[in-house]
């Protein structure tokens, strides 16, 4: 009580532990509240919905009536609200702060897009309603397709892929379908993938039975053109290249690469994850690309939602467009029509390779992406690319003497650093990233791309203000200084302030606990 003044206000903050934290009875820390698992809130008799009894009716379940308790927790609405609100407070988000995850493009998610996606005339529509009753939805898909084709300079598009990796699969299937049609499927069994590629690229090629052949990078972080050309041959089906690449650099030789690919009779797949760097300024169609997926959740800012849903439409060149999968929208004299069967397609003069998903794709994401496109317009989208590239170069120029950059600028939308600046400090890339958490930042992408040692890939995006980026830069400078001046504890034990400290991932994998289970009866009785 000695620390209290006469008004009962504490005048000092005695009794804290070494790192300033004080143990509480509840384990809570003021606004930061601990929360049990939903199943631990189970309270027999409680329920979060009021549903009337259906009354008497003749069951037609046959002998399939479910017996026994399922095990679901019984909880009222206020408890459910509080449970999930408390959980939400344990997440970092782009709305709360800068989220510099390179290659993932965490930019502002305009709420107008959410509002548009929730219009009943758009959200409350079934995929198999008669086509006359869904003309608005088909028009929306057609409009999105038009924007994607114009922005990329490519004549064909498949909207149905559900995410980026699904789009890659779709693009590579179209390539294989074209090779089958040419009678060259047997002969072409190799796909060239740069070592800096996203993991989804080799995984996709392997899923289709292709042999994955790596292309080395030059010292400048780009495809080694000579090594690449030496790998081309009559057995190559395609190259899968990310551009701008995962080092954040534009592939200067891309037109020459495309020409060599086509000369060898192969196709050019582009991973469009980084399209946001060039949208409105460069059209992939002008670079000689045959297929490219577009992550609507990156370039066109549909929310990432903690890991999805995404959407991965694919644009196609003239050569591949006829092979795009079912379904697709066409416009005719009676309005819009969904081509959903092989016979329909035959009449339409195309040869779709098959179907990627049961229905028509991520419509909810299409609405948000189109709302984003309409809001920006052709002028705003060009500005998006310019500001994204400007912010990244500003980060690169401001930090290149404090951190270490493996490649010369200019970069595109993301700035890549390696771990040379940490040499001899005892601090590793992971520690550096975890210390950023205590400073209130989500770490950048770490250890990717694989071609750089201890990579730190920073993508500020165009929706960060200069003031925000300046504070971020100053913070990283301070961290770099601390690492170099032996303040090792700030890093190796970090994070200290987050809802959880470092988690035992090895233990989690060794003995996986993947679901809650009720405590054993003996323990419960204790």
């Amino acid at each position, binding site marked *: 009580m000695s620390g209290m003044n006469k008004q009962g206000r504490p005048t000092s903050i005695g009794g804290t532990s070494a790192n300033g934290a004080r143990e509480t009875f509840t384990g809570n820390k003021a606004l930061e509240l601990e929360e049990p698992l939903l*199943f631990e809130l189970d309270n027999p008799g409680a329920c979060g*919905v009021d549903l009337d009894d*259906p009354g008497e009716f003749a069951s037609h379940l046959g002998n*399939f009536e479910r017996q026994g308790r399922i*095990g*679901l927790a*019984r909880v009222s609405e206020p408890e*459910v*609200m509080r*449970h*999930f609100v408390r959980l939400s407070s*344990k997440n970092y*988000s*782009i709305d709360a702060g800068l989220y510099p995850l390179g290659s993932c493009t965490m930019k502002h*998610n*305009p709420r107008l897009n959410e509002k548009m996606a929730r219009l009943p005339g758009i959200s*409350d*529509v*079934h995929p*198999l*309603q*008669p086509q006359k*009753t869904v003309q*608005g939805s088909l028009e929306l898909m057609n409009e999105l397709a038009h924007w994607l084709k*114009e*922005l990329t300079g490519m004549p064909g598009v498949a909207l149905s892929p559900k*995410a980026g990796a699904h789009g890659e699969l779709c693009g590579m299937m179209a390539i294989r379908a074209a090779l089958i049609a040419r009678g060259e499927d047997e002969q072409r069994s190799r796909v060239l993938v740069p070592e800096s590629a996203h*993991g*989804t690229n080799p*995984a*996709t090629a392997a*899923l289709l039975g292709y042999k994955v052949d790596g292309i080395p990078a030059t010292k400048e972080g780009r495809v080694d053109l000579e090594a690449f050309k030496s790998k081309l041959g009559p057995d190559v089906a395609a190259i899968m290249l990310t551009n701008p690449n995962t080092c954040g650099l534009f592939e200067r030789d891309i*037109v020459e690469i495309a020409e060599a690919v086509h000369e060898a009779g192969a196709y050019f797949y582009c991973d469009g994850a980084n399209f946001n760097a060039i949208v409105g300024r460069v059209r992939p169609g002008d670079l000689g690309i045959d297929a490219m997926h577009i992550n609507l959740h990156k370039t066109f800012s549909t929310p990432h*939602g903690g*890991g*999805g*849903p995404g959407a991965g439409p694919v644009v196609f060149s003239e050569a591949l467009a006829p092979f795009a999968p079912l379904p697709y929208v066409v416009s005719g004299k009676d309005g819009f029509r969904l081509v959903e069967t092989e016979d329909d397609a035959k009449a339409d003069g195309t040869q779709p*390779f*098959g179907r990627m998903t*049961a229905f028509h794709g991520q419509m*909810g994401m299409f609405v948000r992406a189109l709302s984003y496109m*309409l*809001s920006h317009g052709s*002028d705003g989208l060009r500005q998006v690319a310019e500001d994204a590239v400007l*912010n990244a170069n*500003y980060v*690169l*120029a401001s930090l290149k003497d404090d951190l270490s950059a493996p490649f010369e600028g*200019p970069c595109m939308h993301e700035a890549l650093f390696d771990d040379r600046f940490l040499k001899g400090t005892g601090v590793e890339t992971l520690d550096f990233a*975890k210390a950023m958490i205590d400073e209130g930042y989500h770490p950048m992408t770490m250890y*990717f791309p694989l071609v750089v040692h201890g990579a730190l890939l920073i993508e500020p995006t165009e929706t960060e*203000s200069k003031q*925000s980026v300046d504070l971020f830069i100053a913070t990283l400078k301070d961290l770099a200084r601390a690492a170099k001046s032996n303040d090792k504890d700030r890093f190796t034990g970090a994070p200290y302030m987050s809802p959880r*400290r*470092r988690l035992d*991932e090895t233990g*989690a994998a060794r003995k*996986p606990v*993947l*679901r809650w289970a009720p405590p054993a009866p003996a323990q419960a009785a204790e």
Partner: protein
Amino acid sequence: MRYLPLTETDRREMLGVIGAKSVDELFRDVPESARREGLVDLPRRKGELEVERVFAQMAAKNVAAGSVPFFVGGGAYRHHVPAAVDHLIQRSEFLTSYTPYQPEISQGTLQYLFEFQTQVAMITGMDVANASMYDGSTGCGEAVLMAHRVTKRRKAVLSGTLHPQYAAVVKNLSDFADYKLEIMPPLLPGSSEDIAARITDETSCVVVQTPGFFGELHDLRAIAEAAHAKGALLIAVVPEIVSLGAVTPPGEMGADIVVGEGQSIGNGLNFGGPYVGLFATRDKYVRQMPGRLCGETVDADGKRGFVLTLSTREQHIRREKATSNICTNSGLCCLAFTIHMSLLGEDGYRQLARINHAAAVRLAEKLASVPGVEILNKAFFNEFTMRLPKPAAQVVDALAEKGVLGGIPASRLLPGVKEVEDLLIVASTEINTDEDRAAYAAALKEVL
């Protein structure tokens, strides 16, 4: 532009620090032939109000499901979603976060994924579930690929109960991944198929859907036994996940993998997506599963926490040797599912299923009284098939003219199959009222 914070002054200052004269200089690595000087041929920016007008016009050209008596199912169902669900999933911390790669500041997402996995395992009657797939159909494709890995065999048998577009997704994957596939003809209610006879020493799995495409409930026990006797797996597909509140789960009938479409819980129709694929299996197959998994662990202070785990199966670690190329899941749709399921709980989930079944039974009784209509199903949940005296596609269009969305003509998904031409697949859920049913019966009587 309202979403872009940099001002001209900011840009000039930043270019100064970079040492570039203009932004164009930063794009100097782009080949000259591909640099666009002018704007692409698309409209200029729009304010919020103008954008809202554009979408309002498109929305007005649709018939919203909620504006008419509505009976369409076939793998997507209209249910009531409690108000709390949409409020909670729009919280910034859920909506605008990324995949939980930094677990220290992603415990919110990780804990709900763990709860989601638990709920899915419970309702399917399985040991373990993953953190979701894109949707039911793509999950079905992944399940077949997983069965190939587990059994080291390359041939799947698809039952005639399977949704034709799910079968098309599996066929597409099999075509390109060079696996063999046998697709049984559509199995009409009241008929049977001898799937056991199709299982050989080469078969990796059989895929059976219940409730089936025509709404019929199917017994999986004998099929499971037949599959296991030959070393094959049984994959059960559940397109309407509300059904498991009332019917025996596939896990209790011997299924090795259960795939579900989770849209019905927490998620709207959205013209086909985004939805949420449920994927559950037995403990012994965990390391062959596709997709993300969340696991329990402890942090440096010994407190319980959650992480993404067993990621050595995944593409970002294993690259071309990964179990799947999948990366993104259906995060926010999983969250909607988890919240809705939490509100329902044991009693609500069971009651909701009962109400759905009652709604479908009452509708079937009502429509059976329309002259010329024959209900084909014996055992069904909230969807059934009726035979009409004329092609169902015409009838559905005629019903739509009368303001009733009456179901799916089987011919839309099975074009050219003569024996399904007159079949109409009809679903009913808790949203339907007695008035809706009466309106349907009256309209049907008129158009037949």
